[in-house]
Structure formats: structure tokens, C-alpha cells
């Protein structure tokens, strides 16, 4: 099975920050197939289009997936109304994930705001080899810090206004790390300006950089060609699709 669609019970629900929810979903088959960087496509009752939400935790033993999402509009608000014990309709797991390679030494995982959740499954894999840099608007928006600490990874927190952690953007501590250490892989998810800056810094140092992108999406599986992203491969420019070719892309392939 690559992906499937079904209804699955919500084993746990938590509000973890203002308008941000964590769901743990019992879906053994999906959890078995899922890899870091993939997403689930969730049906919001009463809406035509599903909502793509990145995977924040994969527990193959318990057969669960965790998702963390923010209420962005009416559809996500509808999904957030679901409670523990209720069923959630998912098409999952979807998309192309991050590279996972045991031979890597140091990896840096960078999350901005609600782009932070997909970094957690990577931190769980890379553990002490990973430095996790997360950035948020202010202290009220900070999420998942304890989860990242539990993985054994080094964690660096930034806020735009200095109300928690470093006062500044994630690019500041990242710039310091790349000057000091040899890095095998950088993975990032967050706002486009952040990704663009990180990709440029990695290119300068010759570091492999993988970024997770977002786009308005319909089918989620590569059939409708809705979620186009300008990329180049072998010097040829073409519209790749975030749902199938991504959401994770080699930053070198993306045309900004």
C-alpha cells in the first residue's frame, strides 16, 4: 500500500497553543507506510476540498500518526471541532518525504511557525545528531519544544519579538552553526522567505538542503495538477506538483 483513504479514530486531542491542535490518530496501516515529510489529506465536513496537513509523529509500534495544525480558515476550524474518540476521514500517507540516511553526521532541522511539526519525526530519527532550530512570532505561538528536547537533539528557539529564546529569525543561529560545523543535511519547513534564505545559505556552503513546500491543493495524489510549483531538473524548467513530487523538494530544484 502506498496510500489509502478511510475513517480513523482520534486517540488523543490536545490544544497546544492558541488555535493550534494536536491529534493522535489510530491508523496502523497508514502509520506503517508513512515516512517523515509526508502529509495526510483530511476531509472537512461540509467542504469540497480536503486539507493537507503534515505528519508530526509516526509511531509504527502503536500504529498511530500525530498531526499538529493551526486553524487557518473555516475548513481547519471544522476539523478542529473533532474530538477524541470521533472519526477523522484521511487520504494518507501522501507525498515525497525527507531523505533519511543513517550515515549522516550532523543534520540541522529548521521549522518556522506551523512549519515546525514535520521536523519532529526527523528529530526522532536523528536524535543527538540533530540541531533543531525553531522560530515563532512570539512566546504564545511556541509549540513542540518539549517534544524536540525528548529526542536528544540540540534545540534552539527563536522568536521575532524576543519574548522567548533568541530575539531574531532562525537564520541567525543557523548562520552560526554552518560557520562552525560540517553539516550533511538541512531540512526546513516554514514561510517562503525563511526557506529562500536558508536555501541560499546552504547553496553558498554546498550543503544539501531539503525544504517542504505548501500550495493550494485538490486531489492530493498527483492527478489533478492543481498544486503546481516551479522547479528545474536537468536544466529543464517544469511545473512539479507539491502533492506528489513534494511536499519535500531538493532546494536546488526550486525556482523561487
Amino acid at each position, binding site marked *: 500500500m502506498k496510500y489509502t483513504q478511510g475513517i480513523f479514530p482520534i486517540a488523543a486531542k490536545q490544544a497546544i497553543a492558541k488555535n493550534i491542535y494536536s491529534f493522535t490518530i489510530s491508523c496502523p496501516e497508514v502509520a506503517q507506510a508513512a515516512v517523515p515529510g509526508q502529509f495526510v489529506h483530511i476531509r472537512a465536513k461540509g467542504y469540497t476540498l480536503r486539507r493537507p496537513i503534515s505528519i508530526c509523529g509516526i509511531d509504527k509500534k502503536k500504529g498511530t500518526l500525530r498531526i499538529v495544525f493551526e486553524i487557518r480558515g473555516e475548513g481547519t476550524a471544522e476539523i478542529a471541532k473533532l474530538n477524541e474518540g470521533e472519526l477523522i476521514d484521511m487520504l494518507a500517507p501522501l507525498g515525497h518525504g525527507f531523505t533519511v540516511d543513517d550515515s549522516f553526521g550532523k543534520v540541522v532541522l529548521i521549522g518556522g511557525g506551523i512549519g515546525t511539526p514535520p521536523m519532529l519525526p526527523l528529530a526522532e530519527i536523528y536524535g543527538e545528531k540533530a540541531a533543531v532550530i525553531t522560530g515563532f512570532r512570539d512566546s504564545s505561538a511556541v509549540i513542540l519544544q518539549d517534544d524536540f528536547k525528548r529526542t536528544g537533539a540540540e534545540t534552539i528557539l527563536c522568536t521575532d519579538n524576543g519574548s522567548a529564546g533568541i530575539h531574531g529569525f532562525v537564520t541567525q543561529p543557523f548562520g552560526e552553526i554552518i560557520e562552525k560545523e560540517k553539516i550533511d543535511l538541512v531540512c526546513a519547513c516554514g514561510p517562503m522567505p525563511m526557506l529562500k534564505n536558508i536555501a541560499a545559505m546552504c547553496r553558498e556552503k554546498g550543503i544539501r538542503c531539503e525544504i517542504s513546500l505548501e500550495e493550494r491543493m485538490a486531489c492530493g495524489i498527483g492527478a489533478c495538477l*492543481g498544486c503546481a510549483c516551479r522547479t528545474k531538473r536537468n536544466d529543464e524548467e517544469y511545473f512539479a506538483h507539491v502533492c506528489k513530487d513534494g511536499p519535500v523538494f531538493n532546494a536546488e530544484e526550486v525556482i523561487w
Partner: protein
Amino acid sequence: MADLSVNICGIDFKNPVIPASGVFGYGREYEELFPLDKLGGIATKGTTLHRRTGNIAPRIAETPSGMLNSVGLQNPGIDHFIAEELPYLLKKDLVILANIAGSTPDECVEVAQKLDDTDVHMIELNISCPNVKQGGAAFGTSCEMAAEVTRKVRAATKKPLIVKLSPNVTSITDIAKSVEAAGADAVSLINTLLGMRIDINTRRPILHNNVGGMSGPAVFPIAVRMVWQVANAVNIPVIGMGGVSSGRDAIELMMAGASAVQVGAAIFTDPFAPVKIIDEMNEFLDSKGIASVKEIVGTVQPW
């Protein structure tokens, strides 16, 4: 078990449910979820003579009970379709409607000629794509242009020719009559309705193309009305589509005059929608003691 089979232009369909062009690609992604053999047919992604890159994103926007799209006919070109996609589909037990489009009537002709040498079952000529600057809807909004492109493509192929009509016209029945007179074997309708959404924070249209085609349950009553009007105006089969999302909707569209139905946006909501629609149609017919779905076509009794 009611008999769900239908025959359109001499082609047998095991059931009247067909995923609409554009939502279903060339079928591969959905085969992961269910066997394509369950479907009556498949209308493949609109294919042009040469590869098209399509429009800049965003290409998708949500609307109340529906959506907008402006994909812009992104496709790998007809040669790729014939070499890489068609052989795979021909191994399946379903009718293949190759949806084609072009910037000029001559381009449509060339695409149709290439398909004429293949085993594809039917050609669906798209004269109604709202998302491309040349061709597309421009052919579909004037009776003369619609007739001209239909006549030229008709002459280029022996395959049954379905012409897919735009609802963005003053009189869809006039267009339907024009393409019938020009040699179309069937018409399919409705393509999407032109729509627009604006992000009020940025004052930018959500779609990069500014406007796009609206589909989904919101357009269903318009589809029923237009299918009914066209079915009463022409003597060729009508394939109905537009917001069909349940077996009841499919039955309703067939009562309005459709010989088969295509399913579009509903597949995004529920990828199993076409399969469920087939089951629900069967249940409805059984519950009414109707032996064959063919018996309901065009049976609405207007006041």
C-alpha cells in the same frame, strides 16, 4: 442488481459513471485506491498536440460547496499520451474517452488524427476550457467557431466524437445544435463556470490566473437545467456532468436527459465517489423495481 449498462454512439459502457477529464489524470493515481475496471469509462486529462506547462499557482480555490481551478491544460502532449498512458489504460476493462484540446482548430485536427490510429474508444473534444488564453472556451462560445472546429475534427477521425460544451454562453442549446449539425456524435456538458475569488487581505485574486472554472455541488442545478435543455434540443446523446456527487444526483441528471454522467470535483472530496455513485444508483433502481438504468434517461415529466 439493476442493469447499469448503457450504449453511447455504439460503444458499450458497463455502467454510466465516468470520472471527468482533469480530475483523474490518466487513472494511475486512483488505481492505488480501487480497480479502474469498476468504472464505466474514464475521460482522460485534456491533451494537446505539444506538452503544456499550465498556469502559475495558485491554481485552486475553495468556494461555497465547490471550487475554482485554473490548471491551464498542463499535459505531456498527445505523443506521450499515446505512447505511455493509453497502452496502460487499454489493458483495463473500461471505455476510454480521450479528451483533446488545441489553440487552433488545426491543432485539434492533428491531435484527433493521431488518436485515429489508436485503439482509443472515443474522442471528447474540449471546446470549453476556461483557463487558456487561446482556443479552449473561445471555440465554445460562438456557434460558428464551435461548428468549424467540430467539422474539421469530425473529418479527421472515425472515432465517435463527443464535443464538450461550455456553460458560459447565452444559449447552450444553440451551440449544441451547431455542433450536432457539424457532425458531433454526442455532446458532454457542462464544463466549469467561470468564477473568481479575491483574498480581501491582499486584494489579490486567489487564483494567479485571476479567474477560473467553478465546479462542485454548487453548480449541479445549473447542470441539470442545461442537460435538460440540450437533451430536448438535439437528437444525439448527452453526457451530463457538473457537481454530481451522489447516486441520486446521477439519477437526477439522467432523468434530465443524460445517457451517462461524469464525476468531477466530488472525487476530491471522496476519491471513492465514482464507485459509491455506481452502488447508490444500483440501490435506487432496485428500490424502485427499475430493471435497467436506460429506462430512466430523459424521463423527467415537466410541469
